[in-house]
């Protein structure tokens, strides 16, 4: 199969096609180019060094989601997402005498959900990975990533290591929001899968190196429509790097990151294939003391209870789930805080996905925790590239 086969048919205006190049095609473009490192079972982890970028892998991301509250009168309860992607096209930077010589692109996604008002804002920036527009620092330089903000916005989005956690900055003047957050890890790094190897399929190399920091104390400011809101809360970081893509049968994934009020943290993901079946399923449970139990597919089940259809993209997403892990005595219901938390880039026809704040309820309907759910590959021609 060639890379082209995987690319949704391109229709519509040139502008529409544009983002595919920046996003999906770029990742696909590298498919034939060998030389990338692949995820291995015996990866030698080293922290904090592994928080920095890993040249030579095709894809890599830093994924922060969390909840923020402000104590001020009339203040709001917010959910947020902050993500930096590094997408390699070439295994190494070509040796041209030009600052534009690059091995790939960097991308930032950020969203703020106003949970009280049911308002969701999303912003995206895609930049050629050149010093002028996007860069990934080297350990121990505190700057892990810098990506020039979306067009029309002055300044860059940054991800920095502060010694105890990460500092995040993102801004979109057109969407009228800005976030400047500082996090501190409250739990140690959790390696997802055996030694942090997360299988995505049966093919060799169809895996990523995956770790999380499930609880990060978070504080800072969020600016909405010019109003500066001091906030504090808790977030979750997921971190993956590898060189695999979805296999031909796989169309997307459902991913859950839930922080339970009893101190347990639950991560579950299921890669869906064309028939809607979840072929690859993995998960982990972190106990309050930091002990990690890796979950086999047979340990847990997720059942969608209802659906929601987006008025913007027409995609129908599952919208409520029952999660059961009998061996842990868990029977939870996960409910989106509100439905309209779909991330649709300003550039039309960019792949869209649902990434939203959810509440976790126990069997009796009482509150049992908070979390974030990510749903990709729903809707027509919307297969995520990586």
């Amino acid at each position, binding site marked *: 199969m060639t890379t082209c086969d995987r690319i949704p048919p391109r229709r519509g205006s*040139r*502008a529409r*096609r544009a983002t595919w*190049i920046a996003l999906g095609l770029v990742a696909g*473009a590298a498919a034939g180019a060998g030389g990338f490192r692949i995820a291995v079972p015996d990866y030698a982890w080293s922290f904090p060094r592994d928080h920095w970028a890993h040249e030579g892998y095709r894809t890599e991301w830093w994924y922060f989601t969390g909840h923020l509250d402000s104590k001020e009168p009339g203040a709001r309860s917010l959910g947020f997402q902050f993500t930096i992607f590094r997408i390699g096209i070439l295994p190494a930077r070509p040796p*041209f005498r*030009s600052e534009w*010589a690059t091995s790939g692109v960097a991308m930032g996604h950020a969203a703020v959900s106003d949970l009280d008002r049911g308002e969701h804002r999303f912003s995206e920036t895609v930049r050629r990975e050149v010093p002028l527009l996007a860069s990934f620092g080297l350990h121990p330089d505190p700057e892990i990533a810098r990506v020039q903000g979306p067009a029309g916005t002055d300044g860059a989005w940054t991800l920095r290591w502060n010694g105890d956690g990460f500092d995040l900055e993102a801004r979109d003047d057109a969407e009228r929001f800005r976030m400047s957050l500082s996090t501190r890890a409250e739990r140690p790094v959790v390696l997802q899968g055996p030694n942090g190897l997360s299988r995505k399929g049966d093919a060799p190399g169809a895996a990523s190196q995956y770790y999380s920091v499930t609880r990060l104390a978070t504080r800072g400011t969020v600016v909405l429509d010019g109003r500066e809101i001091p906030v504090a809360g808790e977030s979750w970081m997921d971190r993956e790097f590898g060189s695999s893509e979805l296999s031909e049968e796989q169309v997307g994934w459902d991913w859950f990151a839930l922080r339970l009020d009893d101190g347990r943290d639950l991560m579950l993901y299921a890669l869906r294939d064309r028939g809607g079946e979840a072929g690859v399923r993995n998960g982990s449970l972190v106990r309050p003391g930091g002990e990690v139990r890796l979950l086999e597919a047979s340990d847990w089940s997720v059942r969608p209870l209802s659906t929601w259809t987006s008025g913007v993209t027409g995609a129908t997403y599952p919208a409520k789930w029952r999660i059961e892990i009998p061996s842990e005595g868990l029977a939870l219901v996960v409910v989106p805080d509100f439905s309209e938390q779909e991330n649709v880039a300003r550039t039309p026809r960019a792949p869209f996905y649902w990434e939203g704040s959810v509440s976790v309820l126990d069997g009796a309907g009482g509150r049992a925790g908070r979390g974030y759910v990510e749903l990709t590959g729903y809707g027509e021609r919307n297969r995520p590239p990586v």
Partner: protein
Amino acid sequence: MIRVFLRGLAAHFRAGRTLLILSVLGVALGVASVLSVQILNGSALGAFEGGLRAVSGEADLTILGKVPTVPDAWVREAMSERGVAAAWPVVRTPVKLEGPGGVFLDLAGVDVLAPVWFPWDVPPGEVAAALGAPGWAAVSEKLARERGWAVGDVFDVSSGSRRVRLRVGLLVDFRKVSPLAGDRLVVLDIAQAQDALGLEGAVHQVDVKLSPGASRAEVGERLARRLGPAAQVLTPEQRRSQAAGLLSAFRLNLTALSLISLLVGAFLVHTTTQAALVRRRAELGLLRSLGTTRRQVLAILVAEVALLGVLGTLLGIPIGYWAAAANVEAVSATLSNLYLLEGIGSLGLEPWVLALAVAVGLGGAVAGALLPALELSRRDTRALLAPFSLHERVGKAAPRLAVAGCAILAGTGVWYAGLGRGWRPAGFVVALSLLIALPAMTPWLLRTLCGRLRARGFGLAYGVKALGVKLGTTSFAVAALGIAVAMLVGITVMVGSFRRTLEVWIDATIRADVYVTTESWRRARETAVLDPAVVSALLRLPGVRSADRLRRTRAFSGERRIALVGRDVGMPGGEGRFVLIEGDRADAIRRVAAGEAAMIGEPLARKAGLGVGDRLPLTAPGGNFEIPIAGVYLDYAEEHGSAVLDLSALESRFGLAGLTNVDLYLEPGASPERIMDSIRGRFPDAPLELLSNRRLREEILEIFDQTFAVTRLLQGMALLIAVAGITLTLLVLARERVSELALYRALGASRRRILRVFLGEGVGMAGLGILLGVPGGVALAMILIRLVNRAYFGWTIVPSWPVAALARQAAVLLAAAAAASLYPAIRASRTPATELRRDDL
């Protein structure tokens, strides 16, 4: 009525085939000359726009520097501005395709990863190759076909003294994107382009797409403020009009020339129509006496002429297109040589140009015929049946027309002296008034001159004398010829004077023995730089006495784009390189060499109103500055103005590295050929261009001649039209004078004699046309040299008189006229005595 018209028409066209062919040809040539020029004019701009669209796509704004390149960082600055949806870098320059043929390619470097707004895109499988495979290039399908390239093939291009190997990575039909896109477009990823061109850190432009709802004017203004005085932010329309402005003088010249041919064409149409009418007088008289109304007669006449116009237009359009196609090379070469714009890749025929052609052909024919047709339709029946009355009327009007002509000339003169002087196109108004006055004075001059002539026998002189009698017919032909001759003489004198002036200037300024530059410099100018290693090796060559190092670039002086030259101004023994028309040479050279002052070229001095003692404003990357002017030199190389700084001053102000030219002065006795051989031997692979002093001089004059090649085409067309007018007029005369000729024959005139009379008339008309045209042409030349050239180009041209060339042209014209008279003369001489009618006795 319509049946009468159609039947009559067919019969007339059968009877007067020659006349018909000539009339249609006359209209056709008029249409063709206007059309060809408009096609070339339009395509010149189209080439620019086409290239623009293929690379810049749907950019709403383009940021260009007032300095040759702008820093990479401007891309980030642009994308950070409120209202901007995307901004991406573009590098663009002509490069020379290695190998025979001297082909230049238009190399563009774009960010293949930028959220892509180009109107074409790189397929996903190619992105990695575009970014990383050295030399990957997207090439136009047509170019690949022409050169026999397939994907994967390699080709070498050169920019300055560097040579780069490119590989065909992708074939793109840029024409689908933009119908007028050049076929020579080669697109690389920006990183590869910067590497190939040695342009690390610099781009030529930043293209900007706006967010929906953002105002172009407001965002443009904010961007200009953000980026400082070295930036210009232009909309596509502004870029187009900038290119149009750059070409304005060139396009105006072409248009003016085509209008003159149109004028001559209109005369021809007029004569033709008249010829048709004269032939039909008796018939019209008959129709009238049979009860046809005046209005109906008029309708018949106008319909006939309209049909002529349609036929002429139908023929003229392909001829015009052909003429444009035949001259596209010359125009294209001029565009790229003088204006550094893209050459014309293809000719575009826009609907409005076609409409113009129809209007010129049809409208011209009807307008030309309307007056005589009206007059004929108004005549009473008796007058129509009687010959000669038309000419008496023109004879009576002759003095009045002459006075009107003089009045027009005097009026324009007074207007120019008072108001017109400050208005740029005033010279054209004066020239136009001359071209109107000239025909107005023709009948009177013709009558007076021919009346004075003494004809001793029935032969040539008799024929010439007869011209003064048939004013209504002959004065039009003579006037048309006079205008054509005036144009021919005017342009010959102007071009000759210009060429002579240029030769004198070349003698003074082209003094080095060997000129070293690169093959791509001719088109790419400032991007085509010499490798410093090459330069230092050149300076150390045995036999080289001294060297003038030059960096030629472009800069802005206020809103004016000029050529800026940095050179070793103080080079010992190099004073002669500057021919100053203002300022003291020794003092100026000393001050410029010290970096305290600049010298400017004459066109800049004239256009910007600057002189010694003034300060020249310039925009450098660091901002605007002013530098005193120490001298004004003669400059025939840069129509838009030029200035010279010392090389070190240029480098310190503009931070430019890399020389574009090195002029070598040799030790006495050293052979330029030997030095050139040794340079070639030392740098066998560098795409250097070496010119000896003699070769450079020749080349400058070749470019000059090429520039005026189009002028020759139009001159030729005007003359063709005018000579066709002679044939036509003589045919009319032969027809009109059937009974007169029959009388001569009856009185014993031999065919040979009548032949001579008609030859005399033809040659006489040519002679009178020349007599009229030469003073007109001299006046026109002076207008072109003193008014038009000064206003549009700002060059000092010393008038010189290419007498030999003019004499040659006159001889050719007379011979052509004799040849053109031959057929009518033969026809006239065959008039049998039996055509004599009772009335004529």
